[in-house]
């Protein structure tokens, strides 16, 4: 196995592990930090692929990803967390051990689900696709299983990161323009979410279970 394949695999694994860490840790600060690490790993993936394929556009995207997903977005979230540094995901809907078991199962499921893609792409990149899909599913699960609004935002970003990982791996990045667009959209989305987070805390909502006034 080449050094490229090894390093690519390591980066991808870091992305997935970052997702697992989000499920694992209670403290919101740690969670945001994990997200930041994941952003770095994602940028690394893009960069590795860009170097390997001699694709300048992809390198530019890697830069953008590093900026947005490793710095700006976690930074924005960190500022929210900083307002309440001790905030914890103290009583998740699904407790941590069970969440980790689920994460394991989801990873297995991702391996099953990604078979068509693996079969089509093959090679060192194709084999890593399940990790990206696992990240997507774990992120989705985090949104379902965590009470804090911040956790949910992080879960959503995990989903995005997982998708980005899949995109880099299978296609060496969707055309750069789209990638730019989607990354900016994520940025906008996070800005909007941040505003909402601020309004939520201003309105005195500490966790999402309190958002139950709209129902049938």
């Amino acid at each position, binding site marked *: 196995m080449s050094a490229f394949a090894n390093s690519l695999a390591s980066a991808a694994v870091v992305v997935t592990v970052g997702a697992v860490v989000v499920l694992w840790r209670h403290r919101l600060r740690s969670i945001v930090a994990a997200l930041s690490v994941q952003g770095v790993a994602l940028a690394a993936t893009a960069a590795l692929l860009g170097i390997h394929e001699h694709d300048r556009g992809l390198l530019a995207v890697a830069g953008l990803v590093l900026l947005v997903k490793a710095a700006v977005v976690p930074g924005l979230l960190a500022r929210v967390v900083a307002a309440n540094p001790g905030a914890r995901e103290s009583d998740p809907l699904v407790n941590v051990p069970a969440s980790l078991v689920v994460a394991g199962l989801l990873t297995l499921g991702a391996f099953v689900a990604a078979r068509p893609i693996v079969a089509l792409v093959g090679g060192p990149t194709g084999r890593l696709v399940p990790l990206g899909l696992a990240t997507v599913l774990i992120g989705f699960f985090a949104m379902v299983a965590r009470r804090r609004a911040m956790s949910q935002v992080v879960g959503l970003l995990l989903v995005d990161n997982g*998708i980005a990982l899949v995109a880099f791996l299978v296609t060496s990045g969707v055309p750069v323009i789209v990638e730019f667009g989607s990354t900016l959209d994520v940025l906008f989305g996070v800005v909007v979410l941040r505003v909402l987070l601020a309004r939520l805390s201003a309105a005195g909502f500490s966790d999402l279970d309190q958002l139950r006034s709209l129902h049938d």
Partner: protein
Amino acid sequence: MVYWLFLAPLVAGLVAMLSPWRPAVAWLGATSALVVLVLGVGLAVRVEHSGPIGSGVLRVDALAAFLVIVIGAVSLLATVRSVSYLSNEVQAGHSTLRHAALYSTLVQGFIAAMVLAVVANNLGVLWVAIEATTVVTTFLVGHHRTPAALEASWKYIIICSVGIAVAFLGTTVLYLAGVHAHVANPLDFTSLAAHAALLNAPVVRLAFTLIVFGYGTKAGLVPLFSWLPDAHGQAPAPVSALMSGVLLSVALSAILRLRVIAVSTLGPTFPRVLLLAIGIATLVVAAVMLLAQRDLKRLLAYSSMEHMGIMTVAAGVGGPLALSGVLLHILGHGLVKGVLFLDAGEVLRLEGTTRIARLGGLLARRPALGAILAIGLAGLLGLPPFSIFVSELTMLRAEAGAGLWWVAAVVLGVLAIILAAILAHGRTMLLGPSEQSTRSPVSLVAPLGVALGAAVWFGLVAWPLAHLLSLAAGIVA
């Protein structure tokens, strides 16, 4: 000419952003919607005459032209009503001038994003446009700054973002299939559709599933539908009208376009099974939620789900007849649902509530509002002379004609249950005694009446949309 479509919303949006809010600004917004409508008609004429316009990223074919017309029409209705809506809000002190300005800007952005979504010939641009609608409308849903509105916008953005992310995953996977089939421009609808037979079937199956799931979220389909009643219930009435009347349909149209590719690659069975399953599930969920519904706006929201379900089922069946029905249905539903949300907004303003149980005697108390509600509900339930009747009947005929008589039976059964439920709620709201009777201003009744008239017109008279509809249906049949 395609780019001109964005000019009017852009100008109106900029003006609203930069100048202090006053009714003239809102009127400018309405003018922009009118421009979109007129341009849509112009494009439609040209497309009918000389085929699709543009290529590459933006392309207007018959379907796009038709959807632009729908967007223009419902936007016109919503923006015209926005004028008095905002004036009332500002006067009553419910919103500041700054909020009104933000509202006007965002509505223009919303319109532009929807137009972009329907004229996009690129999967990526389509995705960006639909994501943009989410970002823009989140603040519109939260316009009222109440805890409930905040809650609704949170749920809206969280749920829709997940859905739209999954759609992006699907887009990526489809792109992958295109790349591997050496399609020249693998994000282009036209190229993908032309080479669809070469694509890797299992991957396309996965991609189509993800895309239906993702865009289905924005279209209010099962399973991620729950944002819809909350958002539609909390958003300002004109925004609800736009979201329910066109946004859902725009998302659905993305599924329609991608279905064509899926069918060419996979054959008709898989897309049919998938869309039938989702469509019927959506219908059933909407029906049970309507049974004991307690709020008018949520009732309208679930009814939107119902209609999306009907269209999804018909799209699953496929064929020119079914798709003609779907497209006419988009128009009819857009107009009628727009009218109903605007009417419900006025009811909320005047009565202070949209609780069904508290509205008793509306027909006697506010004859015009009540009558519009009654007529609109009748149209929504697929009663003639509204076009929804013709389109539903067309879809049912297509279902039976395709040998799927059980689908027609299920749809009709669910529709009958929904009808009984909405009729019961309508009875509670509309009928009954009332001490006094208040007339409503013509400025309210006239636009809504015109829109209802249009919905009737297209149910009775095929002209002038018949040819455009058949062309558009041919694209996605």
